[in-house]
C-alpha cells in the first residue's frame, strides 16, 4: 500500500510539474463553462415563456441545466481522459524508467494500482473544478443538490473506468499517441454501443444497453444511485486493471 501511494504521489506530482495539466484544467473549465452558459440562457428563455404563456412543460434546473451539463461534462471527459492516461505507463517505458520500477522489490499490481490512483485522482480533480457552475446556480436559485451530488458520484465512477481503460492501452505501447488513440476508440465504442441497441432485437438490446458506458449514467443524472450502475462501473474498472496487470506482468 505504501508503495502504491508512493507511485501515485510521484505520478500526481509529475502531472502538475508539466504545463499540460494546467492547460487541461483551464480548457476543461472553459468549455464546460460555455456549455453551462448556453444551457442556462436557454433555461431562462423557456422559463420566461412558460410563465408568460404557460406553454410547454415547466422547465426545472435539474432537467434543463444540470442534466445536460453533466451529460456534457462526460462528453468532454471522453476527449480529455485519453490525453491524461496515455503517459502513465507508456512514458515510463519510453524513458526506460520501467526498469527502475520493475527491478525494485515491488509487485506489478502495486505499480498498476498506484498509476490508476494517480490518473483517477487527476481526472476527478479536473471534473471537480466544474462545481463552480452548480454553486453559481445556488446563488441565483435552488438547484437539487441530490441530483448534483449523485451526478458527481457517477462522473467519479466514470473517471475510474476511463483511467483503467487508458492505463491498459498505455501498458501496451511505448508510444503515447497510439495509447491515446486506442483509449479514445475503446471509450467511444462503449459509448456508441447503445446506438446499436436501438436497432437490435429485444434480448440483444438489453445486453448492449447494459454494456454502454453512458447508459449507466442516466440514473445518476436523475439523482438516483442504483447499485447496478455502481457494480457496472466498478467491474469494468477492475476488469481493465486486471488486464493491465497481466499485460505488465508478461511484459
Amino acid at each position, binding site marked *: 500500500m505504501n*508503495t502504491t501511494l*508512493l*507511485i501515485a504521489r*510521484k505520478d500526481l*506530482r*509529475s502531472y502538475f*510539474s*508539466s504545463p499540460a495539466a494546467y492547460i487541461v484544467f483551464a480548457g476543461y473549465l472553459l468549455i464546460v463553462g460555455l456549455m453551462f452558459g448556453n444551457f442556462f440562457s436557454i433555461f431562462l428563455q423557456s422559463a420566461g415563456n412558460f410563465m408568460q404563456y404557460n406553454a410547454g412543460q415547466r422547465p426545472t434546473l435539474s432537467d434543463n441545466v444540470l442534466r445536460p451539463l453533466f451529460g456534457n461534462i462526460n462528453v468532454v471527459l471522453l476527449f480529455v481522459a485519453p490525453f491524461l492516461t496515455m503517459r502513465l505507463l507508456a512514458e515510463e517505458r519510453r*524513458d*526506460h*524508467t*520501467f*526498469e*527502475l*520500477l*520493475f*527491478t*525494485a*522489490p*515491488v*509487485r506489478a499490481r502495486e505499480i498498476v494500482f498506484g498509476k490508476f490512483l494517480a490518473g483517477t485522482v487527476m481526472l476527478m480533480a479536473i471534473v471537480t473544478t466544474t462545481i463552480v457552475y452548480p454553486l453559481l446556480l445556488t446563488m441565483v436559485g435552488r438547484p437539487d443538490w441530490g441530483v448534483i451530488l449523485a451526478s458527481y458520484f457517477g462522473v467519479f465512477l466514470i473517471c475510474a473506468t476511463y483511467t483503467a481503460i487508458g492505463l491498459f492501452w498505455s501498458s501496451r505501447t511505448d508510444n503515447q499517441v497510439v495509447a491515446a488513440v486506442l483509449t479514445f476508440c475503446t471509450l467511444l465504442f462503449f459509448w456508441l454501443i447503445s446506438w446499436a441497441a436501438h436497432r437490435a432485437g429485444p434480448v440483444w438490446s438489453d445486453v448492449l444497453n447494459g454494456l454502454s458506458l453512458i447508459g449507466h449514467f442516466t440514473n445518476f443524472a436523475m439523482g438516483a444511485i442504483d447499485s447496478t450502475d455502481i457494480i457496472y462501473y466498478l467491474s469494468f474498472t477492475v476488469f481493465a486493471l486486471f488486464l493491465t496487470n497481466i499485460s505488465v506482468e508478461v511484459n
Partner: protein
Amino acid sequence: MIEVKALSKTYGGGRAAIQNVSFSVKKGEILGFLGPNGAGKSTTMKILSGFMPATSGTAIVNGFDVAAQSLQAKASLGYLPENPPVYSGMSVQDYLEFAARLHGVPKHRVAAAISDAMGKCGIADVKTRLIGNLSKGYRQRVGLAQAIAHNPPVLILDEPTVGLDPKQIIEIRNLIQGLGGEHTVILSTHILPEVQATCSRVVVIDRGHVVAEDTLQGIASRMQSNARLIVTLRKSPASLLPKLNSLRGVLTAREEDAGVVGEYGVLVECAKGSDVRQDVAELCVQEGAGLLGLSQESLSLEDAFVRLITSDETTRDMTPAQV
C-alpha cells in the same frame, strides 16, 4: 552470491540473445562481464535484475531465484540499466528519494541514505537541479546513485562508465572498486581496460555464449595460447600425420571430423609465433593428400580480445593512466 546456471533467452522471432550461459560470483567479488556490443551482456543483466524472464535456466541472487522469489531477489540488488532510469522532470534529490523509498528504505533513513549516495557519486552539487537539464555523465551518475542508495548486497551495473569523460571514468571506477568487499558487484563492459582496472574476475561473452570465465591472470595466460590450423583433405590423413608431427614448429597434429562426408580434417597445433602454413600446404601436396583447404582458427580468445580492445579507440588511448 550470484549463481547463473544454463541461462538462455530467445526473443520473439527466434533470435537467441544468450545460450546456456553459466557463471558464478562470490561474495565481495567484482566480476567483469566482458563482451562486444550485442554479445548478450544487457540481456543477461536484465534477467539477473528480474526485469525480464529467461527462456530457460536459473539465476540465483543472494540465495533467491530471480524468477520464483523475485521480490526477495530484487530486494537484495541495486541495478543500473544500460540507460539510466531517471525521470527528467524530477530534481536529483526528489528522484533519489523516490528510488530509495521504492527500494524499501524507511522514511527516517532516506535523507542520510541519499546524501551518502550523492556524495559517493559526486552529484551533491546538482541535487536541486532537474535531471532533464543534466549532462549525460551526470545522469549516468544519478543512475548509479540510485543503484547504491539503498545499500544492496548485490550490484548489477550495465556499462556504468558509458558517456562519462575520462576524469569521471576514473572516479567511477575507483568508486566501484571501493564497493567490492562489502558488496558483490557484477559490471558489464565492452572495454578491456575497465575490467583490468576494477575487476578481480572476468567472464567473457560473445554472441550469446560464455567463451571464458577466469581470473585476470588466468585470462592473460590463456591469451598466450597456441595458434591452430585446420586442414581439410580429400584423402585419409593416416599416413600424413607422422610427417606433419615431425614438421618444425608443429606441436601436435591429429585427425578431426571434417563434418562433411568424403572429407577429412586435421587439426594442427603449432608453437606460438611460428607460421607453418606454407610447410603444411607443401607437405600435403607432396604427399598427394588432396588438400582442399587450410585455415587458421578464427575466433581464438586472443582474437576476441583484440577485437574488443580495438573497438574502443578512446579508452585505448587512456589505458596507460588506468592500468
